């Protein structure tokens, strides 16, 4: 089962499911998992609206759940997602797939599947854009001032 973390993780999960169906001919249940309520920085930031959580009807009990997100950075979003999964059921295993791993982990979390390892400085920002959400597929590393394109 693929569970994307909104917004872009959910989009990526849908794309992965499509690609798996094309290559393997297998239909993987796909959903989205909002982690806003589980964030540890909730009360340090201005309020954010919750995004949809859609769990496939079969539930996550005994499934192998692959979490999908766009960028893996501190690992705090993934920690929040693990807590959210704990409230939804008991999967057989949880794995993590990310498009970009930019390093700088603050928690003992690693990805099982990585699209690209992207060494970055802490001061830089990594911005993933996807056609479905932003109208274009690109990954940008941005300083405060300039922005340079990495992978079109």
């Amino acid at each position, binding site marked *: 089962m693929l569970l994307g973390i909104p917004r872009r993780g959910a989009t990526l999960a849908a794309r992965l499911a499509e690609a798996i169906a094309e290559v393997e001919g297998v239909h993987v249940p796909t959903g989205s998992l*909002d982690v*806003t*309520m*589980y964030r540890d920085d*909730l*009360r*340090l*930031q*201005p*309020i*954010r*609206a*919750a*995004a*949809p*959580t859609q769990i496939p009807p079969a539930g996550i009990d005994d499934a192998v759940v692959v979490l999908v997100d766009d960028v893996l950075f501190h690992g705090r979003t993934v920690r929040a997602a693990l*807590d959210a999964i704990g*409230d*939804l*059921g008991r999967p057989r295993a949880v794995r993590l797939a990310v498009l970009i791993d930019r390093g700088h982990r603050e928690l003992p979390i690693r990805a099982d599947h990585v699209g690209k390892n992207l060494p970055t400085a802490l001061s830089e920002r990594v911005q993933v854009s996807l056609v479905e959400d932003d109208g274009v597929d690109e990954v940008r590393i941005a300083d405060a001032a300039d922005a340079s394109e990495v992978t079109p």
Partner: protein
Amino acid sequence: MRHLLSAADLDRDQALTILETAAQMHEVQHREVKKLPALRGRTVVNLFFEDSTRTRSSFEIAGKWLSADVINISAKGSSVSKGESLRDTVTTVAAMGIDGMVIRHHASGAPAQVADWIDAVVVNAGDGTHEHPTQALLDAYSISRRIGDLAGKHVVIAGDLTHSRVVRSNLLLLKTLGAQVTLVAPPTLMPSGVAAWSEAAGFATTYDFDAVLPDADAVMMLRVQKERMSGGYFPTPREYTVGYGLTRQRLKLLSPNAVIAHPGPMNRGLEITADAADEARSLILDQVSAGVAVRMSVLYHLLGGAQ
């Protein structure tokens, strides 16, 4: 937005954000573990000076499902019955270090006054004949779930307009959301000065319920508040039903796609017949289940982020 005292505190974006978050909260209601950690370590006090079942219990459940610690205080059985003033009661409770206070009071404006006295976030859960903003939010939520975006939709609100706090909040919120509103009441229950008010706020009023029904996308029936009916507002209950009740005959005037709402508790047979309350177009049970989701969303937006 620091407090929620009036439906007018919300601009269109804020209202839509709260309704959108409520939809996500609604989904939690169907989970096995109905708990989100968003308000862990926060304390919310429900201070109710008037009787209430659904509002108080839904605020309590909403707070608990968000992991806040919730304490209920009602006027009966508290120091209020020993003669303590409102100010002393709320400042005493606030001094215990609470983060939020949900307050219902029989005096219009009491929550706004309380917000001046204490540091905690204040949510108006109904004050006198003034406002009841979370009810308006859950009405808007239930109606829009069924008939879509409220912009341009025609909502008819019928019943005891004079004593209803629900109608004031609903009017403000529905205007914010772009709906067209018509108020219906017998002349005795139409608030005095409504003409000037309706002109300024941009809604219509009428005494003729039948005339506006065919064009309505939603009909909201208000409760006849028997406890406030000592003034001889109508000769007999039967006469009220004939003129302003949602009867079987009136149901036929209503479009098949229109929905029926009632904030509860209902007086079946008075302002709404069983046929109307229990039919498929009725949102009444949806409204109750939406109550928890909408109040979760409100508590989350007021207490969840950086203060």
